[in-house]
């Protein structure tokens, strides 16, 4: 039995020309959790593996939703995370 849900758009979502990659320097992370708590697009999650210091670093499980806002980068107290353009997947010059 399907559950009832609000109407979803029938036309496909316009894809952004720019794709993003999140780079985590795992060993700098002290597991404060700011990045995944405040990510407005719910891109990041707590990893299930711990780093050399014994903390759980973030992992970008939902990278398709990332819009490159850079909030995680701005919030990280240890400069352990940054967002960069994924040039391999970005469509340069637009479509």
């Amino acid at each position, binding site marked *: 039995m*399907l*559950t*009832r*849900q*609000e*109407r*979803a*758009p*029938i*036309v496909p*979502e*316009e894809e*952004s020309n720019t794709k993003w990659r999140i780079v985590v320097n795992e060993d700098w992370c002290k597991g404060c959790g700011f990045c995944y708590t*405040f990510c*407005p*697009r719910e891109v990041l999650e707590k990893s299930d593996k711990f780093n050399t210091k014994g903390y759980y670093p973030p992992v970008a499980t939902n990278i398709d939703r990332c*819009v*490159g*806002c*850079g*909030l995680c980068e*701005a*919030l990280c107290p240890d400069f352990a995370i940054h967002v960069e353009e994924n040039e391999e997947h970005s469509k340069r010059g637009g479509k």
Partner: protein
Amino acid sequence: MSTEEPKIGVFICHCGSNIAGVIDIPQLVEYTATLPNVVVAEDYRYMCSDPGQDLIRERAREKGLNRVVVAACSPTLHEPTFRRVLESMGLNPFFFDMSNIREHCSWVHTHEEEAALEKAKDLVRMAVARAAELEPLVQKEVDVKASVLVVGAGIAGIQAALDIADAGYKVYLVEKEPSIGGHMAQLDKTFPTLDCSSCILTPKMSLIGQHPNIELLTYSEVREVDGFVGNFKVKVERKPRFVIEDKCTACADCLEVCPVNVPDEFNTGLGWRKAIYIPFAQAVPNAYIIDTEHCLGMTPIACGKCKDSCEAEAIDYEMKPEILELDIGAIIVTTGFKLFNAMEQLEYGYGKYPDVMTNLEMERMLSAAGPTDGKIIRPSSMKKPKDIAYIQCVGSRNERYNNYCSRVCCMAALKQARQIREKYPDINVTIFYIDMRAFGKGYEEFYESTSREYGVTFVRGRVAEVRGSFDSDRIVIRAEDTLLGQPVEAEADIVVLSCGIQAAENQGDLARVLGIQLSADGFFLEAHPKLRPVETNTDGIFIAGAAQGPKDIPDSVAQAKGAAASALTMVTAGRVKVQPYAAVVNEELCAGCGICEASCPYGAVKVVDNVAQVTEAQCKGCGTCAAACPNEAIAPQHFTMDQIIAQLDALFQEAR
């Protein structure tokens, strides 16, 4: 206090057979003549008619009457009529009382004639007792502010605002959405003429934007209404749109950079918009707005891409809500309707099968400016459908949802069916209906040509169930064809639910803010269904459009023009009479306890220097303070304690 002996004339109305058909009038007259202070007791077929009014004048002259009681219909209907009669004889119009023996007696006791007579006697006796206690009052005249507030800027609000502004008066037009236009802006074409909806609406919208007499307040809501007819004090909250309207040039640079896609409400969620957006291309005001729920820039260090790209520097993340205080003479409420939520009627499968859609969704799909550029596709497969079925009366004429007929869905379905057949002659359209209601000018002709010339199929019967087919991706509709008297099963690729009109979600809250009433179905209640269709029971507040009940565009426009004319009558006259019912305080008795202040629902009573004081302009004469006061020190005029006790004494005197 009048010291002369009361001489009361009681006039009993037959109201044709409305009263006389149930109550034995001669007996009632005979009884009335025996009541204390009654000098004249007479009956007449229609007291409200000219000869009826003349009868009152004649008897008053002959017998020197100084009080008049009319036993007839509700005072809401004819109290003003009879007060004018008293005024014309030089009597104070407040030496009049009305006994309602129609709504309160004959109409509700049609089959209990004897009991009805007894009740009528009680009612008349009470009115006579109160009449003896009446005191002369002076009606005050107050100035009317030369400005009108119109709440809601759909087609009704737009029309009302334009009419008033053209007459030279100031109009404040408040709309809660970021753009004016309402539901009409979402329609592709309008029945029965198939005019393009935006082509006839947008010129009016841009007139609103440019009119020197109209102050347009979009994305704003009415929060508080104080005061009274002619002198309302209204607080309007302007919600922050985070884009400065005057600076925004609608250049769309921000759209290019905004990274967030959100389902587009204007396209009923069928398409996408950005977190910074304009509701539709012809929106008025033509300025963008930021949807704070989805925008990332609300956390300032996060996004801010739109602000960086905006050359006009129109974006301000720091914008705060603003409260405006307006002085208003009259208010017109045109807040429109809400579409019935198809999800509620479970058996039609909306929300379960993507190919079951609402009539408004189909309207957006048919629109050349819509998400599919006017192409009809099945939401599930994005392919062209072969069969489309319409189900009428979804949420309407159904005791589980709304009992009333929504009045527009039959014609809307016919119009869409015709548009589909015009665009795609190979798509079959079937309409399942209970009754086709094509009642307006040119509607029946439209219905006939749609069925005859455009080959639309009609099946008469309420649909019982909509479900997915077991062996294809199509949808199965089961109904009873009441013309053939047998169950039918049909398959379709798209099922369109003709969802009805219902009262807007916050209509009750708004009614409370404005102090107006709702009818049983949740729409605003008019003062009289036939003769005062745009007035409310609160003086100076008028209603129009679908907020008063389901209505199509021609009816909404007509009613809006009516409401505008009524508001103009008041504003143009410049002065209006107010009822002198405000509470008065007996300062000798007042202990200054403040219970009245706490109980007053209108904030009209304040205790100053240990004595209660009434702001007459704010008092509505409701009597709550009088009931609460432990010392009987405060009472509204015309409903004094003496008058009410006299009525009660009269009621129980027979029983004693």
